[in-house]
């Protein structure tokens, strides 16, 4: 394991599998009556969220508390940082209070790397701009693995805004390393330049993209994409790319339906698909806590790591 978790780019399939395997232990703990472990007693974790987030922040906080770490939370909008509140100062100040680990969500690409480079703290990236969101991808993989033990050749269809989605990037980096057969599907305006070089299939036609897939991972569509002119309307997106049961019928018989949440029911996913028996959207949330516990466990500083 590396010193920080900044992104999945560069991770090998084996490294990812190791994390998923370890996560199993923590997943079992979540089914016990006493869901707490004393493991990180004495370790302090700061959750710095410069972008609004409820789920990821709660998931991290719960993972930290289940490991008996001390937790502090900091929330600020990126815009207030732009108004002169310097990110490095913010993190340094929190570090000066002898915080061991920092979980950071920030709107700027590379912000987790920036903190890792300049501040004395273990950094876990909880999303940096449209760049990476590694723990989300890892919990997606954990959930996939509960249903499909082998990633090799597994057909995964990811539907949504590849231009702006950090979840898609981390998923692509990881799934490629694991040997999955990935197809990206989005309106052409929401595909980034050079996507053809990502080593995944790209298809704007959702019927072709989803046909035969074992996994469909549906991304949230932000309303801002309409106002910024990338798509004419959420309505049109829903009609063309929204996943409904007719599209699900095109998938392999053995399939699961995923969504990182929060869902826009009726836009990118219909109600009946979201609540179908094959939907693993809630298990994703549960698994997220376990995967984050595993990451915290792996990265928690051992003696002499941080404070000299």
């Amino acid at each position, binding site marked *: 394991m590396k010193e920080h978790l900044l992104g999945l780019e560069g991770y090998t399939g084996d490294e990812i599998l190791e994390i998923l395997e370890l996560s*199993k*232990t923590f997943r079992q703990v979540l089914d016990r*009556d*006493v869901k707490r472990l004393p493991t990180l007693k004495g370790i302090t974790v700061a959750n710095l969220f410069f972008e609004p987030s409820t789920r990821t922040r709660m998931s991290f906080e719960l993972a930290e508390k289940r490991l008996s770490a001390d937790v502090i939370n900091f929330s600020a909008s990126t815009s207030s940082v732009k108004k002169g509140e310097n990110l490095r100062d913010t993190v340094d100040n929190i570090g000066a209070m002898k915080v061991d680990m920092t979980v950071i969500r920030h709107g700027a690409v590379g912000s987790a790397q920036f903190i890792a480079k300049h501040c004395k703290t273990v950094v876990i990236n909880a999303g940096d701009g449209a760049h990476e969101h590694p723990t989300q991808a890892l919990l997606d993989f954990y959930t996939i693995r509960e249903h499909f033990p082998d990633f090799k050749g597994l057909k995964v269809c990811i539907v949504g805004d590849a231009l702006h989605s950090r979840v898609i990037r981390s998923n692509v980096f990881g799934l490629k390393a694991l040997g999955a057969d990935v197809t990206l599907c989005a309106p052409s305006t929401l595909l980034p330049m050079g996507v053809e070089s990502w080593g995944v299939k790209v298809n704007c036609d959702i019927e072709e993209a989803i046909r035969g897939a074992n996994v469909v991972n549906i991304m949230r569509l932000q309303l801002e994409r309409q106002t910024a002119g990338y798509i004419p309307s959420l309505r049109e997106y829903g009609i063309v790319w929204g996943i409904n049961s007719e599209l699900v019928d095109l998938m392999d018989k053995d399939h699961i339906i995923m969504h990182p949440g929060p869902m826009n029911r009726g836009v990118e996913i219909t109600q009946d698909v979201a609540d179908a028996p094959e939907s693993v959207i809630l298990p994703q949330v549960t698994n997220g806590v376990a995967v984050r516990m595993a990451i915290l*466990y792996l990265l928690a500083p*051992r*003696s002499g790591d941080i404070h000299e």
Partner: protein
Amino acid sequence: MIEILDKDHLARSITRIATEVVERNAGAKNLAIVGIRTRGVPLAERLANEIETLEGIRPPVGTIDITLYRDDFKEITSSPDVGGSNLLFGVEGKDIVLVDDVLFTGRTVRSAIEAIIDYGRPNTIQLVVIVDRGHRELPICADYLGKKVSLKDNEYVEVHISEIDGEDRVVKVTRK
């Protein structure tokens, strides 16, 4: 390397301990055996076998991994393997017989007790060890003991179990 117990000695110790366990608990009905990873696990299986021979009931056997319960997390320099615990039976109300190979500082046992209690509230927890080598750092003692030895600071006990080490034998080694 000096031998403390040979193969036959070890087997006889386990048989004796089984008898003591059954005697003290008035049978085997409410017992559950929990081996502490790694060498406590095969020892727990053997103990269960002996109890079955004596009583005709085989108590359930579980394993406990104390890695996540260690009190020295910051001193562990590399990431240890976390084997995971397996206590499929409910521990609630059970008489738990905790099995480990060597009793030294007592910290492993303390961690194991904490781990078991996180699964529920047992009636009792009793401790079996093959060798007590002294130098305790916590107020913990064994309820059932194979052999007590007194060692210098640089001397250590190694319990070899055939399932893991290919032989049944307990030896004393000296390390720098």
